[in-house]
């Protein structure tokens, strides 16, 4: 956990390498290319980069047309605009016709921090997950982002990939192999398991280490694909540990916590706690302050684990 890379930077680099390998890759942005890091691609491949201006709805439709025309479009803006402003365009023009468009949205959740509640997407996973044909990926670090972008490019169909603004610890080494729909189990655990996504995976690993000192054996699972959910991994963790905590910097409604709760309720009901943003809008603050403010820090997770263990039968 030494090197720190923002997942948006990893995305920009992944686009450039993809652009070198494939002529069909095109990139669209809505006046935020410097922030989303699509500017890296624009610099190398100006002819395959289209700035659509501050017009997210039009951008989604344009991407759909490029996909019909045989291109592989990557579409980027902030998560709140990609999934909120343009939701119905994503539904009607991309997912309903099942087109090969990749939406990679940055500055997700609390990572946009200081900009405040207007810019913090705490609903994006929920509103993307509910659309048929859509795949939803939330990578945890730079290397996972790189592989997730490559996997999304290989996969045929609409994808939503959520990346963040700030530098995050690198969790995965060169031997890691990302696969859409496959969770990564850091350690199995015995007393409870934390299922996390995005920047919360690092918090979950910290919580695990805190609890270890107290003699509590907690498993950590990186659920980088939220849809299709790796229900096998969820069920196995529930059977093994008997208690589950989900961790996401997103609303506790409809996101990772919602998805895991749906799976558990049908396959292996065990005590569960959803750690996330509790049905409220965001507020200004830096990422670290916000994680504490919303009860998303490693110590909050550790506390939630202890509470959920008490509920075990």
């Amino acid at each position, binding site marked *: 956990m030494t090197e720190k890379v923002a997942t948006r930077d990893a995305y920009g680099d992944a686009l450039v390498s993809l652009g070198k390998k494939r002529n069909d890759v*095109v990139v669209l942005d809505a006046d935020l290319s410097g922030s989303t890091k699509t500017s890296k691609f624009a610099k190398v491949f100006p*002819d*395959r980069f*289209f700035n*659509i*201006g501050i*017009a997210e*709805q*039009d*951008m*989604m*439709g*344009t*991407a*759909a*047309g*490029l*996909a*019909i*025309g*045989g*291109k592989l*479009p990557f579409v980027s803006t902030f998560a709140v605009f990609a999934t909120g402003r343009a939701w*119905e*365009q994503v539904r*009607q*023009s991309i997912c*309903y*016709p*099942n*087109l090969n468009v990749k939406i990679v949205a940055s500055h997700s959740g609390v990572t946009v921090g200081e900009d405040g509640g207007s810019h913090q997407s705490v609903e994006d996973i929920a509103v993307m997950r509910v659309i048929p044909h859509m795949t939803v990926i939330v990578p945890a670090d730079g290397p996972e982002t790189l592989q997730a972008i490559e996997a999304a490019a290989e996969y045929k169909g609409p994808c939503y990939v959520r990346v963040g603004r700030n530098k995050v610890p690198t969790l995965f080494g060169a031997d890691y192999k990302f696969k859409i729909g496959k969770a990564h189990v850091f350690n199995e655990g015995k007393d409870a398991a934390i299922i996390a996504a995005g920047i919360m995976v690092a918090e979950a690993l910290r919580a695990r280490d805190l609890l270890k000192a107290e003699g509590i054996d907690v498993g950590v699972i990186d659920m980088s694909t939220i849809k299709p959910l790796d229900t096998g991994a969820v069920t196995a963790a529930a059977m093994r540990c008997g208690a589950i905590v989900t961790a996401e910097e997103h609303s506790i409604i409809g996101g990772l916590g919602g998805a895991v709760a749906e799976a558990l309720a049908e396959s292996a009901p065990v005590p569960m706690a959803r750690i996330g943003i509790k049905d409220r809008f965001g507020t200004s603050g830096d990422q670290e302050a916000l994680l504490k403010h919303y009860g998303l820090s490693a110590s909050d997770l550790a506390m939630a684990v202890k509470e959920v263990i008490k509920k075990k039968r």
Partner: protein
Amino acid sequence: MAATEEQLKTLREKARRVRIDILKMLTECGSGHTGGSLSATDIVTALYFYKMKYDPKRPDWKERDNFILSKGHAAPVLYTELAHAGFIEHAELCTLRKLGSRLQGHPDSKCMPGVEISTGSLGQGLSVANGLALAHKLDKSSNRVYVLLGDGELQEGQIWEAAMTAAHYKLDNICALVDNNGLQIDGPVEKVMGVEPITDKWRAFGWEVFDIDGHDMAAITAALDKAENVKGKPTMIVCRTVKGKGSKVFEGKVEFHGTAPSKEELDIAMKELSGETVCK
């Protein structure tokens, strides 16, 4: 290169037959959008039987021109043209809106051959057309993209975002047409939410604009020809039309926006349509 008298005669006859098929399928189905299908019939007929390149045996043929029905509720006219063009059998038209049919209430590109993109939610087709036009430019191919909008549809903000994009990227391989029949569900367009002056708006957005009678086959074909010679900017053809064109039963009647004819209304319309052709 203008359409010959012989061609125009054939196109008018084709449009008459298409209208008959539209009315029959709508009556059989018992629901669907009559008015906006009939107002667009001459325009879409000219596209499929005068202007566009396509191969019904290979709907995904690389060299094809693209047609996007942005006003997706006019699906009956699109399905009928596709049947006449050989993409589907005529017999399939009577499955419109039925469970399991490829002829969904609004066009679904996943199942319907010849439909480039699913539409139905208004305001989205022009953006998709822009994307296709950009793809053709990247491929240095000469394929053209045609997109049909409704006049009520111009109330959608995304249309004007897309209008900017097409002009900004100089998409002269796009020809948009607006079926200006003047009526939307809640009444006259100008009463619900005025869109005039349509031509001035598109010109101000950087488009070449032609303003024509959308039932005059000579005018439609001439405008489509002229659009091909416009360089450096997209073309909009504002087609002044009559909603429900083809029979007095439907013409100018807002209640036929989303209503199918009854058997009796069909009988009256058939008598009118079996005589002289309906367009000039």
